């Protein structure tokens, strides 16, 4: 699976699970999920869970940060790095 597919999948997941409360929002792949109020801490726990199961990567405690999970692009990058290291 390449980056484009991962991105499309993640986008779909975020839209279906978190964005339905904000239909007016046109979410860009670089946009801050937290600042835009799309996800809160509980949302991140769900999202991290999803990323772990879907892409078979392990996410450590210190890794759930803005750098790795702050936007769709950040998550794609994170999954990429994790898989390359595996």
């Amino acid at each position, binding site marked *: 699976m390449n980056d484009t597919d991962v991105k499309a999948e993640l986008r779909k997941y975020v839209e279906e699970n978190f964005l*339905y409360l904000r239909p007016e929002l046109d979410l860009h792949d670089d946009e801050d999920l937290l600042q835009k109020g799309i996800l809160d801490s509980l949302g*991140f726990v769900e999202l991290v869970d999803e990323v772990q199961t879907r892409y078979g990567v392990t996410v450590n*405690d210190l890794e759930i940060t803005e750098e790795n*999970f702050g936007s769709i692009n950040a998550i794609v990058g994170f999954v990429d790095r994790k898989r390359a290291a595996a």
Partner: protein
Amino acid sequence: MNGRTLDEDLSAAARRQGDKTVLVTQQRSVTFTELDAAAERVAVGLLALGVQPGDRVAIVLPNSVELAEAVYGVMRSCAAITPLNPTIKAGKLSQLLEHASVAAVVCDEERAEVVRAAVARSEREIPIVDDLASIGSRRDGDRPPHPLDSNLGAVVYTSGSTGEPKGVTLTQRNMTFVADSIIEYLEMNERDRILCLLPMSFGYGLYQLLTCVRCGATLVLEQGITFPGRIVGLLESEKITGLPAVPTVFQVLISLKGLAERELPHLRFITNAGAGLPAATLAEVRRTFSGAKLYSMYGQTECQRVCYLPPDQLEVRPTSVGIAIPGTELWVENEEGRVARPGEIGELMVRGSHVMQGYWEEPALTADRLRPGRWPWERVLATGDLFTQDEEGYLYFVGRKDDLIKSRGEKVAPKEVEEVLHSLPGVREAAVIGVPDKLLGQAVQAHVAAHAGHELDPAALKRGCAEQLETHMIPQHVILHTALPRTANGKIDRRSLSGKTPPQD
């Protein structure tokens, strides 16, 4: 500390250890001297805007340095703080501004629009301060008046079961008394560095700031748990000694891989309140933070803190919330109004100087909860919560007397959510209940039936709620029915709604 008000705590600490950092936030940090100077400036600015001692000043801010400046600035002007949830919507805000006859609102630019909309509905002129840095200078007026501990300290809003606003009215004395009691049993001192993720509109969050300033400690303030990895990083980098949290926060933290293996040598204690920790979570929390003492506590806005379990008892009675906080007395009262026998269920009663003065301008609601005490001048607090006590006097929470939901440690009045649902197009019937939820403690579950010819969309109903309600009140689940089940006398049968999986019409 005899008679020292909360505002005087700040000046005293500034004199004693002015260069020490009192507050750390992601944006900036301030010293005791800087916070003290800001409080003075804000106080002078508020007085210049016409705020009088004893007036209520609403604070609508997320956790930030500005929030602390507002809290201490308001208190220094000898006015009372009314801290409100930063996600509050204009309708509710306007209701509270009138209820407490608020004299001014402090907010930030982001919330200014909501605040202006709420203020516009008032017939009174209510000044809005949306940029705290811009108000006040020494030239504006005289020094603020001398503070007394019998002054009005705060009106803190909490939900009643029918959603009516209840403004818990506290004097400075109520607040300093409970702050001292908390400082005593947690053995807090000026070496402490507390990490606060809880909103300050919530008493449990507010008192993190008040106790830290009172004992000269440092508070690391975050806007909620946000990115869990950041919190773990802060525990290490900020050498956090105390972590107060609610079950939801603990659920997030224990879900993190690798946290239990971290040393966290500075972490001295963690506290839980807001709702009880399920036994499995409790064990997991103890394993994750094995080097820290865990305090299980119970409190309510009406007196802030009621009881705590001394950590050495956690092994002996893990499900207990312990004993009265220092300087106070507790007992369980049965239906005949007598002290309950060990194991007998009854309402928990509280006696002490932390008990509120009443609900702001609601004498009937006040009389329901403040009962005559032993002396003519004394009133004791009926908590409205059911408990039992064991042979040695340790307390166990049994349940609430009303149907309030506790989600993420915060109260949700079903009625308030139901009213919003009823206002949405196509909704004929709505009932809101709490259902067990691993992360939230209780999740808000809405049961809704449509008017004939209407089709309802659960996502649209949630959106409608999000537009009018604070975040923690938005239903997690919306379940559609053709008609809600009724009891024999025609009331919605809430028990059957919570008892079984409802039909998915």
